[in-house]
Protein backbone atom coordinates (compact mmCIF):
# COMPACT_ATOMS: atom_id res chain seq x y z
CA UNK A 1 0.00 0.00 0.00
CA UNK A 2 1.15 3.50 -0.78
CA UNK A 3 1.12 6.00 2.05
CA UNK A 4 1.64 9.72 2.17
CA UNK A 5 1.99 11.34 5.56
CA UNK A 6 0.81 14.93 5.30
CA UNK A 7 1.64 17.46 7.95
CA UNK A 8 -0.01 20.58 9.17
CA UNK A 9 1.69 23.89 8.68
CA UNK A 10 3.99 24.99 11.49
CA UNK A 11 4.33 28.53 12.69
CA UNK A 12 2.77 31.54 11.05
CA UNK A 13 1.17 31.19 7.61
CA UNK A 14 2.95 33.01 4.80
CA UNK A 15 1.28 36.07 3.21
CA UNK A 16 0.74 35.14 -0.43
CA UNK A 17 -0.46 36.92 -3.54
CA UNK A 18 -2.04 34.55 -6.07
CA UNK A 19 -1.58 35.15 -9.81
CA UNK A 20 -5.20 35.02 -10.83
CA UNK A 21 -6.59 34.85 -14.36
CA UNK A 22 -10.17 33.95 -13.47
CA UNK A 23 -9.76 30.46 -14.96
CA UNK A 24 -9.85 27.07 -13.27
CA UNK A 25 -6.09 26.54 -12.80
CA UNK A 26 -5.37 29.76 -10.95
CA UNK A 27 -8.57 29.34 -8.91
CA UNK A 28 -7.60 25.80 -7.90
CA UNK A 29 -4.07 26.94 -7.03
CA UNK A 30 -5.69 29.64 -4.87
CA UNK A 31 -7.81 26.97 -3.16
CA UNK A 32 -4.65 24.95 -2.38
CA UNK A 33 -2.80 28.05 -1.14
CA UNK A 34 -5.65 28.91 1.23
CA UNK A 35 -5.37 25.49 2.88
CA UNK A 36 -1.99 26.25 4.46
CA UNK A 37 -1.05 29.90 3.88
CA UNK A 38 -2.75 33.29 4.10
CA UNK A 39 -3.86 34.62 0.72
CA UNK A 40 -3.91 38.42 1.05
CA UNK A 41 -4.48 39.52 -2.54
CA UNK A 42 -5.10 38.43 -6.10
CA UNK A 43 -2.75 39.62 -8.83
CA UNK A 44 -3.98 39.88 -12.39
CA UNK A 45 -2.33 40.93 -15.63
CA UNK A 46 -4.85 42.08 -18.24
CA UNK A 47 -3.44 41.45 -21.68
CA UNK A 48 -4.67 43.47 -24.63
CA UNK A 49 -3.10 40.92 -26.97
CA UNK A 50 -5.50 38.04 -27.62
CA UNK A 51 -2.65 35.62 -28.29
CA UNK A 52 -0.87 36.48 -25.06
CA UNK A 53 2.18 34.32 -24.38
CA UNK A 54 1.78 34.39 -20.63
CA UNK A 55 -1.78 35.11 -19.67
CA UNK A 56 -5.24 33.79 -20.10
CA UNK A 57 -7.30 36.37 -22.04
CA UNK A 58 -11.08 35.85 -22.58
CA UNK A 59 -13.34 37.26 -19.88
CA UNK A 60 -10.44 38.78 -18.00
CA UNK A 61 -12.60 41.71 -16.89
CA UNK A 62 -14.61 39.22 -14.84
CA UNK A 63 -11.67 38.89 -12.43
CA UNK A 64 -12.74 41.98 -10.50
CA UNK A 65 -16.22 40.46 -9.96
CA UNK A 66 -14.62 37.17 -8.92
CA UNK A 67 -12.40 39.03 -6.44
CA UNK A 68 -15.48 40.73 -5.03
CA UNK A 69 -17.24 37.35 -4.75
CA UNK A 70 -14.26 36.05 -2.75
CA UNK A 71 -13.86 39.30 -0.77
CA UNK A 72 -10.20 39.49 -1.70
CA UNK A 73 -8.40 42.60 -2.96
CA UNK A 74 -7.28 42.48 -6.59
CA UNK A 75 -4.30 44.26 -8.10
CA UNK A 76 -4.56 44.57 -11.88
CA UNK A 77 -1.98 45.61 -14.42
CA UNK A 78 -2.67 46.30 -18.07
CA UNK A 79 -0.20 44.95 -20.61
CA UNK A 80 -0.04 45.38 -24.36
CA UNK A 81 0.85 41.72 -24.55
CA UNK A 82 4.14 42.09 -26.38
CA UNK A 83 6.22 39.04 -25.45
CA UNK A 84 8.97 40.42 -23.21
CA UNK A 85 7.07 43.61 -22.25
CA UNK A 86 4.51 41.35 -20.55
CA UNK A 87 7.22 40.20 -18.21
CA UNK A 88 8.05 43.76 -17.19
CA UNK A 89 4.36 44.38 -16.52
CA UNK A 90 4.13 41.16 -14.53
CA UNK A 91 7.14 42.19 -12.48
CA UNK A 92 5.62 45.64 -11.91
CA UNK A 93 2.35 44.23 -10.60
CA UNK A 94 4.04 41.69 -8.32
CA UNK A 95 6.23 44.48 -6.96
CA UNK A 96 3.10 46.55 -6.35
CA UNK A 97 1.51 43.62 -4.46
CA UNK A 98 4.66 43.35 -2.34
CA UNK A 99 4.55 47.04 -1.46
CA UNK A 100 0.78 47.27 -0.91
CA UNK A 101 0.01 43.98 0.80
CA UNK A 102 3.49 43.01 2.09
CA UNK A 103 3.24 39.64 0.40
CA UNK A 104 6.07 37.22 1.15
CA UNK A 105 5.40 35.01 -1.82
CA UNK A 106 3.48 34.36 -5.01
CA UNK A 107 1.40 31.32 -5.92
CA UNK A 108 0.58 30.42 -9.53
CA UNK A 109 -1.57 27.89 -11.38
CA UNK A 110 1.23 26.78 -13.72
CA UNK A 111 0.81 23.09 -14.63
CA UNK A 112 3.19 22.19 -17.45
CA UNK A 113 4.56 25.36 -18.99
CA UNK A 114 8.27 25.62 -18.28
CA UNK A 115 8.23 28.97 -20.14
CA UNK A 116 5.71 30.42 -17.68
CA UNK A 117 7.21 28.82 -14.56
CA UNK A 118 10.78 29.85 -15.33
CA UNK A 119 9.90 33.50 -15.87
CA UNK A 120 7.79 33.81 -12.74
CA UNK A 121 10.50 32.06 -10.70
CA UNK A 122 13.05 34.62 -11.95
CA UNK A 123 10.84 37.58 -11.10
CA UNK A 124 10.11 36.22 -7.61
CA UNK A 125 13.78 35.53 -7.04
CA UNK A 126 14.71 39.10 -8.06
CA UNK A 127 12.05 40.50 -5.73
CA UNK A 128 13.07 38.15 -2.88
CA UNK A 129 9.67 36.48 -2.86
CA UNK A 130 8.76 32.82 -2.44
CA UNK A 131 7.22 31.17 -5.48
CA UNK A 132 4.81 28.24 -5.30
CA UNK A 133 3.17 26.24 -8.10
CA UNK A 134 0.90 23.71 -6.34
CA UNK A 135 -0.51 22.28 -9.60
CA UNK A 136 2.95 21.74 -11.11
CA UNK A 137 3.12 18.60 -13.29
CA UNK A 138 -0.33 17.53 -12.17
CA UNK A 139 -2.17 15.08 -14.42
CA UNK A 140 -4.66 17.18 -16.37
CA UNK A 141 -7.56 14.76 -16.14
CA UNK A 142 -7.02 14.41 -12.39
CA UNK A 143 -6.99 18.20 -12.09
CA UNK A 144 -10.36 18.48 -13.86
CA UNK A 145 -11.84 15.73 -11.67
CA UNK A 146 -10.65 17.43 -8.47
CA UNK A 147 -12.17 20.72 -9.59
CA UNK A 148 -15.54 19.01 -10.10
CA UNK A 149 -15.27 16.96 -6.86
CA UNK A 150 -14.56 20.14 -4.91
CA UNK A 151 -17.70 21.74 -6.30
CA UNK A 152 -16.18 24.46 -8.43
CA UNK A 153 -18.55 25.87 -11.06
CA UNK A 154 -16.40 26.42 -14.13
CA UNK A 155 -17.57 27.26 -17.64
CA UNK A 156 -15.73 26.94 -20.93
CA UNK A 157 -15.27 30.54 -22.07
CA UNK A 158 -12.90 30.10 -25.00
CA UNK A 159 -12.15 27.38 -27.57
CA UNK A 160 -9.15 27.54 -29.85
CA UNK A 161 -8.67 24.16 -31.58
CA UNK A 162 -10.37 21.74 -33.94
CA UNK A 163 -12.78 19.97 -33.39
CA UNK A 164 -14.00 22.18 -30.52
CA UNK A 165 -16.92 24.27 -31.73
CA UNK A 166 -19.61 26.66 -30.55
CA UNK A 167 -21.50 23.92 -28.68
CA UNK A 168 -18.74 23.84 -26.05
CA UNK A 169 -18.93 27.52 -25.18
CA UNK A 170 -20.64 28.32 -21.89
CA UNK A 171 -20.79 24.64 -20.85
CA UNK A 172 -20.20 23.93 -17.16
CA UNK A 173 -17.34 21.45 -16.68
CA UNK A 174 -18.81 18.27 -15.18
CA UNK A 175 -18.01 14.57 -15.39
CA UNK A 176 -19.66 14.27 -18.82
CA UNK A 177 -17.62 17.15 -20.24
CA UNK A 178 -14.43 15.67 -18.74
CA UNK A 179 -15.23 12.36 -20.43
CA UNK A 180 -15.63 14.12 -23.79
CA UNK A 181 -12.41 16.11 -23.32
CA UNK A 182 -10.50 12.93 -22.50
CA UNK A 183 -11.84 11.33 -25.68
CA UNK A 184 -10.67 14.35 -27.68
CA UNK A 185 -7.25 13.99 -26.09
CA UNK A 186 -6.99 10.42 -27.38
CA UNK A 187 -8.21 11.32 -30.85
CA UNK A 188 -6.83 14.81 -31.50
CA UNK A 189 -4.11 15.20 -28.83
CA UNK A 190 -6.00 18.11 -27.28
CA UNK A 191 -4.89 18.68 -23.71
CA UNK A 192 -8.03 17.93 -21.61
CA UNK A 193 -7.47 20.81 -19.22
CA UNK A 194 -6.58 23.25 -21.98
CA UNK A 195 -3.05 23.88 -20.76
CA UNK A 196 -1.96 24.01 -24.39
CA UNK A 197 -4.35 26.94 -24.88
CA UNK A 198 -7.09 24.84 -26.55
CA UNK A 199 -9.73 25.88 -24.05
CA UNK A 200 -10.10 28.75 -21.64
CA UNK A 201 -12.32 28.68 -18.60
CA UNK A 202 -14.02 31.06 -16.19
CA UNK A 203 -14.82 30.20 -12.57
CA UNK A 204 -18.28 31.24 -11.40
CA UNK A 205 -18.26 29.59 -7.98
CA UNK A 206 -15.86 27.73 -5.68
CA UNK A 207 -15.87 26.68 -2.02
CA UNK A 208 -14.08 29.89 -1.01
CA UNK A 209 -16.45 32.22 -2.90
CA UNK A 210 -18.66 34.11 -0.43
CA UNK A 211 -21.18 34.69 -3.23
CA UNK A 212 -21.58 32.91 -6.54
CA UNK A 213 -21.57 34.61 -9.95
CA UNK A 214 -24.66 34.39 -12.11
CA UNK A 215 -24.43 35.31 -15.80
CA UNK A 216 -27.18 37.68 -16.84
CA UNK A 217 -26.08 38.43 -20.40
CA UNK A 218 -23.49 36.98 -22.74
CA UNK A 219 -22.43 36.92 -26.35
CA UNK A 220 -20.77 34.19 -28.39
CA UNK A 221 -18.20 35.18 -30.98
CA UNK A 222 -17.07 32.36 -33.22
CA UNK A 223 -14.82 31.93 -36.22
CA UNK A 224 -14.71 28.23 -37.24
CA UNK A 225 -12.80 26.44 -34.50
CA UNK A 226 -11.95 29.48 -32.46
CA UNK A 227 -14.52 31.18 -30.29
CA UNK A 228 -15.15 33.07 -27.09
CA UNK A 229 -18.03 33.26 -24.65
CA UNK A 230 -18.12 36.91 -23.71
CA UNK A 231 -19.70 37.61 -20.36
CA UNK A 232 -21.47 40.94 -20.73
CA UNK A 233 -23.40 41.23 -17.50
CA UNK A 234 -23.29 39.31 -14.21
CA UNK A 235 -24.70 39.53 -10.71
CA UNK A 236 -23.49 38.18 -7.39
CA UNK A 237 -25.93 35.80 -5.74
CA UNK A 238 -26.08 34.61 -2.10
CA UNK A 239 -25.05 30.98 -1.67
Amino acid at each position, binding site marked *: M*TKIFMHNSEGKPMRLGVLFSGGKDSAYALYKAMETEEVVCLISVVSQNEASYMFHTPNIDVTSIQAEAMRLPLIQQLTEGIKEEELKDLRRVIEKAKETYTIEGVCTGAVESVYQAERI*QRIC*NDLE*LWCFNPLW*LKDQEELLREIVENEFTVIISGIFAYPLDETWLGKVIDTQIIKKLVELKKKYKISPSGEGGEIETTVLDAPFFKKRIEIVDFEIQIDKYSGVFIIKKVRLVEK
Partner: protein
Amino acid sequence: MILIVDMNYKGSLGFYEFVLPLCRIVEPLEYEVWHYTEVKDIEYQEVILSGTALKDTGYLRNMGLFEWIRECDVPILGICAGLQVIGLVFDSLLILCQEIGMTEIEPVKENPLFSSPLTVYELHNYGIDPSDEFEILTTSEKCIQGVKHKKKEIYGVLFHPEVRNKDIVKRFVQE
Protein backbone atom coordinates in the same frame (compact mmCIF):
# COMPACT_ATOMS: atom_id res chain seq x y z
CA MET B 1 9.11 -0.10 -0.81
CA ILE B 2 10.56 3.28 -1.78
CA LEU B 3 11.03 6.13 0.68
CA ILE B 4 10.44 9.65 -0.67
CA VAL B 5 11.77 12.29 1.72
CA ASP B 6 9.96 15.65 1.65
CA MET B 7 12.70 18.29 1.98
CA ASN B 8 10.37 21.32 2.07
CA TYR B 9 9.43 23.12 5.28
CA LYS B 10 6.60 21.32 7.04
CA GLY B 11 3.22 22.06 5.51
CA SER B 12 4.77 23.90 2.54
CA LEU B 13 2.94 24.15 -0.77
CA GLY B 14 6.27 22.88 -2.12
CA PHE B 15 4.98 19.40 -1.23
CA TYR B 16 2.64 19.54 -4.25
CA GLU B 17 5.35 20.91 -6.52
CA PHE B 18 8.40 18.83 -5.59
CA VAL B 19 7.13 15.67 -3.84
CA LEU B 20 3.85 14.66 -5.52
CA PRO B 21 5.40 14.64 -9.03
CA LEU B 22 7.94 12.08 -7.73
CA CYS B 23 5.12 9.96 -6.28
CA ARG B 24 3.40 9.96 -9.69
CA ILE B 25 6.60 8.82 -11.41
CA VAL B 26 7.35 5.92 -9.04
CA GLU B 27 3.75 4.66 -9.12
CA PRO B 28 2.63 1.87 -9.34
CA LEU B 29 5.63 0.83 -7.20
CA GLU B 30 4.96 1.05 -3.47
CA TYR B 31 6.27 4.10 -1.67
CA GLU B 32 5.97 6.12 1.51
CA VAL B 33 6.54 9.84 1.94
CA TRP B 34 8.06 11.17 5.16
CA HIS B 35 9.09 14.69 6.05
CA TYR B 36 12.86 14.98 6.55
CA THR B 37 12.43 15.83 10.24
CA GLU B 38 10.59 12.55 10.80
CA VAL B 39 12.64 9.94 8.98
CA LYS B 40 13.18 7.12 11.48
CA ASP B 41 14.25 3.79 10.08
CA ILE B 42 15.54 3.17 6.58
CA GLU B 43 13.96 -0.20 5.89
CA TYR B 44 13.35 0.63 2.26
CA GLN B 45 14.76 -0.55 -1.05
CA GLU B 46 15.51 2.93 -2.37
CA VAL B 47 15.41 6.47 -1.03
CA ILE B 48 14.68 9.68 -2.98
CA LEU B 49 15.31 13.09 -1.40
CA SER B 50 13.06 15.72 -3.02
CA GLY B 51 13.82 19.26 -4.13
CA THR B 52 12.32 22.37 -2.54
CA ALA B 53 11.04 25.84 -3.43
CA LEU B 54 13.90 28.15 -4.46
CA LYS B 55 13.85 30.12 -1.20
CA ASP B 56 13.43 27.05 1.01
CA THR B 57 16.80 26.16 2.52
CA GLY B 58 15.56 25.21 5.99
CA TYR B 59 17.11 21.75 5.62
CA LEU B 60 20.57 23.35 5.71
CA ARG B 61 19.90 24.43 9.30
CA ASN B 62 19.00 20.84 10.23
CA MET B 63 21.97 18.91 8.85
CA GLY B 64 22.12 16.82 12.04
CA LEU B 65 18.92 15.12 10.91
CA PHE B 66 20.65 13.64 7.87
CA GLU B 67 23.40 11.63 9.58
CA TRP B 68 21.50 8.45 8.64
CA ILE B 69 22.65 9.02 5.05
CA ARG B 70 26.25 8.25 6.08
CA GLU B 71 25.25 4.81 7.40
CA CYS B 72 22.61 4.07 4.75
CA ASP B 73 23.35 1.02 2.61
CA VAL B 74 20.46 1.28 0.15
CA PRO B 75 20.53 3.35 -3.07
CA ILE B 76 19.77 7.06 -2.60
CA LEU B 77 18.90 9.67 -5.22
CA GLY B 78 19.10 13.28 -4.03
CA ILE B 79 17.44 15.94 -6.18
CA CYS B 80 18.58 19.58 -5.86
CA ALA B 81 18.19 20.13 -2.07
CA GLY B 82 18.73 16.36 -1.81
CA LEU B 83 22.04 16.62 -3.69
CA GLN B 84 23.18 19.48 -1.46
CA VAL B 85 22.43 17.46 1.68
CA ILE B 86 24.14 14.31 0.37
CA GLY B 87 27.16 16.41 -0.55
CA LEU B 88 27.36 18.06 2.87
CA VAL B 89 27.00 14.74 4.73
CA PHE B 90 30.10 13.51 2.88
CA ASP B 91 32.17 16.67 3.48
CA SER B 92 31.53 18.55 0.22
CA LEU B 93 31.25 22.33 0.15
CA LEU B 94 28.05 24.22 -0.51
CA ILE B 95 28.58 26.92 -3.11
CA LEU B 96 26.49 29.73 -4.57
CA CYS B 97 25.48 28.70 -8.06
CA GLN B 98 22.18 29.88 -9.50
CA GLU B 99 20.35 28.36 -12.47
CA ILE B 100 16.65 28.81 -13.27
CA GLY B 101 15.04 27.18 -16.31
CA MET B 102 16.05 24.80 -19.08
CA THR B 103 19.79 24.08 -19.25
CA GLU B 104 22.07 21.80 -21.28
CA ILE B 105 24.11 19.24 -19.36
CA GLU B 106 26.89 17.04 -20.73
CA PRO B 107 27.33 13.60 -19.20
CA VAL B 108 31.01 13.20 -18.45
CA LYS B 109 31.01 9.75 -16.95
CA GLU B 110 29.14 6.59 -17.78
CA ASN B 111 26.41 5.83 -15.29
CA PRO B 112 23.17 3.82 -15.16
CA LEU B 113 20.82 6.80 -14.85
CA PHE B 114 21.49 8.89 -17.98
CA SER B 115 23.70 8.57 -21.01
CA SER B 116 23.48 11.37 -23.55
CA PRO B 117 23.64 15.18 -23.35
CA LEU B 118 20.33 16.32 -21.87
CA THR B 119 18.23 19.44 -21.56
CA VAL B 120 17.03 19.67 -17.98
CA TYR B 121 15.00 21.97 -15.71
CA GLU B 122 16.96 23.84 -13.07
CA LEU B 123 15.78 25.70 -9.98
CA HIS B 124 18.52 26.36 -7.46
CA ASN B 125 20.62 29.04 -5.80
CA TYR B 126 23.25 26.62 -4.45
CA GLY B 127 25.29 23.76 -5.77
CA ILE B 128 28.18 21.71 -4.37
CA ASP B 129 31.90 21.46 -4.77
CA PRO B 130 32.09 17.68 -4.20
CA SER B 131 34.58 16.06 -1.83
CA ASP B 132 36.91 13.24 -2.90
CA GLU B 133 34.25 10.73 -1.87
CA PHE B 134 32.31 11.54 -5.06
CA GLU B 135 32.85 11.18 -8.75
CA ILE B 136 31.36 13.81 -11.03
CA LEU B 137 28.83 12.42 -13.52
CA THR B 138 27.77 15.54 -15.35
CA THR B 139 28.10 19.32 -15.45
CA SER B 140 26.44 22.37 -16.99
CA GLU B 141 28.30 25.50 -18.00
CA LYS B 142 27.92 26.90 -14.47
CA CYS B 143 27.50 24.06 -11.98
CA ILE B 144 28.26 20.43 -11.20
CA GLN B 145 24.99 18.73 -12.07
CA GLY B 146 25.38 15.11 -11.05
CA VAL B 147 27.56 13.11 -8.68
CA LYS B 148 27.88 9.53 -7.45
CA HIS B 149 29.47 8.35 -4.23
CA LYS B 150 32.57 6.31 -5.17
CA LYS B 151 31.75 3.39 -2.86
CA LYS B 152 27.99 3.55 -2.42
CA GLU B 153 24.91 3.65 -4.64
CA ILE B 154 24.31 7.27 -3.70
CA TYR B 155 23.49 9.66 -6.53
CA GLY B 156 22.78 13.35 -6.55
CA VAL B 157 21.46 15.57 -9.34
CA LEU B 158 21.19 19.34 -9.09
CA PHE B 159 18.54 19.58 -11.82
CA HIS B 160 14.91 18.45 -11.45
CA PRO B 161 14.47 15.19 -13.43
CA GLU B 162 10.77 15.05 -12.47
CA VAL B 163 10.06 17.94 -14.88
CA ARG B 164 11.41 16.88 -18.28
CA ASN B 165 13.56 13.80 -17.55
CA LYS B 166 11.24 11.43 -15.69
CA ASP B 167 13.11 8.39 -17.06
CA ILE B 168 16.03 9.15 -14.74
CA VAL B 169 13.81 8.67 -11.69
CA LYS B 170 12.21 5.56 -13.26
CA ARG B 171 15.62 4.02 -13.97
CA PHE B 172 16.74 4.73 -10.41
CA VAL B 173 13.78 2.93 -8.83
CA GLN B 174 13.90 0.05 -11.31
CA GLU B 175 17.65 -0.58 -11.06
